[in-house]
């Protein structure tokens, strides 16, 4: 019996070219990240500091939240509290309705993804436009992100071209885009030229920025000391989303809080270096108060976070700042792709967050780990990712999600390893296995022999060699 992850991954690896490209893409990000990490002599100290600041903040969360909310109010910002996804979606809808909003432009936010906000808004007749280029492409294609920082990196430019043609964007913006590059539109189209495509997207998005009634952003950090939020992007789309519309709504998970500017300096140095291998994101935007004539709202969302805080084995997931590095380094993620996981956040942190959210579905991701511990070592806030995955595995049996084959094998091992006599006599007959017709051993060990030849048992085990003369004490 295989997990959903294993089944999908087995499919994914069939296309060698695709899996190699996927692996190489994310490995190159890991390499860039390493170069950045090695440029700062204080790197490991920064990680330790970041880990401690997060620990301190989440263990004093109530105090910092109060402080943050109070300061935000002083800045003229409306502060809301949402205990779960439904309440959050309702609050957003209520604010939008009060302002008669027809169209929302959004910068990237995993929290809105977590709460299913887009579907809820569209259901209520509100037009939602993602403005992060990758997110917009996925939205137009109607598919979910496959990575939390580079959500559409698995899509080829040819696919983007096809989608833009399909949605009429090329027809509408193609000429303008080609002119802006002094290029031949037909050639650029035929080549699915990346600059041409970005220009098309730029003109397409610009119109949406101009006509939206509300801009929504997430928050990479919330600073308690000042009541402001910090949003990091590479495209400047958070700034565009908030510069024109008269309404700005920030959605922020309560774990995004940090105490003060001094701590912000630590995270600012880690986030982009570790996530994408850049010294900093292109834009680091601080939003403290509404522009003149604008209204600003911050919605603080719990949605299970305070339960996690009380979970001895897994509270450290709250330290995560969603840099994505654990995905990039994970040898399993790189070779199975984001869609092999059943939770919308894939990779090491996604395995853990998925289990916290809905173990009955997401136990399917617990197999996606060789326990190599690489994720633990890249994480800028030292989340104990692999230890947590190991711990989840110990709980699967009591959750009735243990794999029967693994259980049977473990039970067999228990019997054998608990009884040295049995173990030794099993070893005495083991060499016989080498003489059996290979189709028999292949049948017995069929999953293993998909990729491997059978290992050969030695003619004599170490046990036997020891007894028959190796021991030179006598």
């Amino acid at each position, binding site marked *: 019996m295989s997990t959903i992850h294993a089944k999908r991954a087995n499919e994914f*690896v069939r296309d060698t070219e695709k899996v190699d490209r996927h692996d190489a893409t994310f490995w190159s990000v890991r390499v860039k990240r390493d170069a950045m990490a090695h440029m700062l002599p204080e790197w490991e100290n920064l990680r330790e500091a970041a880990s401690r600041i997060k620990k301190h903040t989440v263990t004093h969360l109530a105090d910092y939240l109060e402080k943050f909310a109070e300061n935000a109010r002083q800045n003229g910002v409306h502060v809301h509290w949402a205990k779960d996804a439904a309440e959050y979606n309702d609050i957003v809808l209520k604010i939008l309705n009060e302002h008669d909003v027809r169209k929302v432009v959004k910068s990237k936010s995993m929290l809105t993804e977590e709460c299913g906000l887009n579907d809820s808004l569209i259901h209520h007749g509100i037009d939602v436009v993602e403005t992060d280029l990758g997110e917009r492409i996925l939205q137009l294609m109607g598919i979910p992100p496959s990575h939390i920082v580079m959500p559409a990196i698995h899509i080829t430019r040819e696919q983007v071209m096809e989608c833009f043609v399909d949605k009429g964007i090329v027809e509408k913006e193609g000429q303008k885009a080609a002119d802006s590059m002094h290029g031949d539109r037909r050639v650029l189209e035929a080549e699915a030229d990346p600059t041409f495509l970005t220009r098309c997207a730029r003109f397409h998005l610009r119109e949406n920025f101009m006509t939206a009634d509300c801009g929504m952003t997430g928050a990479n950090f919330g600073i308690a000391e000042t009541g402001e939020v910090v949003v990091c992007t590479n495209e400047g789309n958070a700034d565009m989303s908030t510069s024109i519309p008269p309404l700005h709504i920030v959605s922020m998970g309560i774990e995004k809080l940090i105490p003060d500017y001094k701590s912000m300096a630590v995270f600012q140095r880690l986030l982009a270096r570790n996530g994408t291998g850049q010294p900093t994101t292109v834009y680091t935007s601080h939003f403290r108060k509404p522009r003149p004539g604008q209204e600003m709202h911050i919605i603080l969302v719990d949605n299970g976070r305070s339960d996690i805080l009380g979970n001895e084995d897994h509270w450290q997931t709250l330290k995560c700042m969603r840099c994505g590095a654990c995905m990039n380094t994970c040898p399993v993620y790189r070779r199975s792709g984001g869609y092999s996981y059943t939770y919308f956040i894939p990779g090491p942190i996604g395995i853990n967050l998925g289990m916290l959210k809905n173990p009955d579905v997401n136990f399917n991701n617990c197999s996606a780990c060789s326990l190599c511990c*690489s994720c633990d070592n890249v994480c800028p806030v030292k989340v104990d990712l692999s230890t947590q995955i190991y711990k989840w595995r*110990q709980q699967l049996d009591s959750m009735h999600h243990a*794999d029967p084959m693994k259980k049977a094998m473990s039970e067999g091992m228990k019997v054998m390893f608990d009884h040295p006599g049995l173990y030794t006599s099993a070893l005495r007959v083991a060499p016989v296995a080498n003489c059996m017709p290979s189709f028999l051993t292949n049948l017995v060990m069929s*999953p293993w*022999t998909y990729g491997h030849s059978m290992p050969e048992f030695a003619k004599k085990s170490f046990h036997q060699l020891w007894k028959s003369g190796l021991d030179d004490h006598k």
Partner: protein
Amino acid sequence: MKIGLFIPCYVDALYPEVGVSTYKLLRSLGLDVYYPEKQTCCGQPMGNAGFQDKSRKLVESFDELFKGFDYVVAPSASCTSYVRFFHPEIAGHECEAAGKTVDLVEFLHDIMKVKSLPAKFPHKVSLHNSCHGVRELGLSSPTERNIPKFNKIKDLLQMVEGITVFEPERPDECCGFGGMFSIEEIGVSTKMGIDKLHRHIGTGAEFITGPDSSCLMHMQGIAAKRKLPVKFIHVAQILSAGL
């Protein structure tokens, strides 16, 4: 110094020569080496599969068997780290033996501080830095971290006459074994193994060597199925070559 030799189950059954090499190597250093015959396994295969509880009895008897020694030495980084870091938690109390359990490389490098070895091995080898050796035991500096570079396995191998040691591209990426992982996630596990093998072979080495027979077994199985031109040898066998 009294040494308890821990020969993990799969070394016992599949690679007894690795155990013999380890024994000879330790004896050549003038150590008193014992092999408690009632030993079986460290329990890791069950733990990684999610059944750590099934190894409680085994953990207790491991402690009983080995607690009287000055050190417990095993030619396996992964089993060593499981004993040292997981046994106390499984047992629910401190384990005397676990604190004294070391991998052969650690033992030679850090405790015996060997500076020379009589071994000869006139071959090119590619060093397999296995995950638990790197990231749990600290046999080499993990590439993820910004700490001074070191590699204890390489230090030892370079004492061997005639040897040329290479490291593959991505020197500490996982080979995809992971115990039950290699059965449950067969597609990804095999792909990881193939990728790793190509990087090892890409160094031009004749042998792949490492401190963990489990990783070597995994890669050997994949290489044999595809008839890839490379041989496998445990670090202990190279360090004891000629004894």
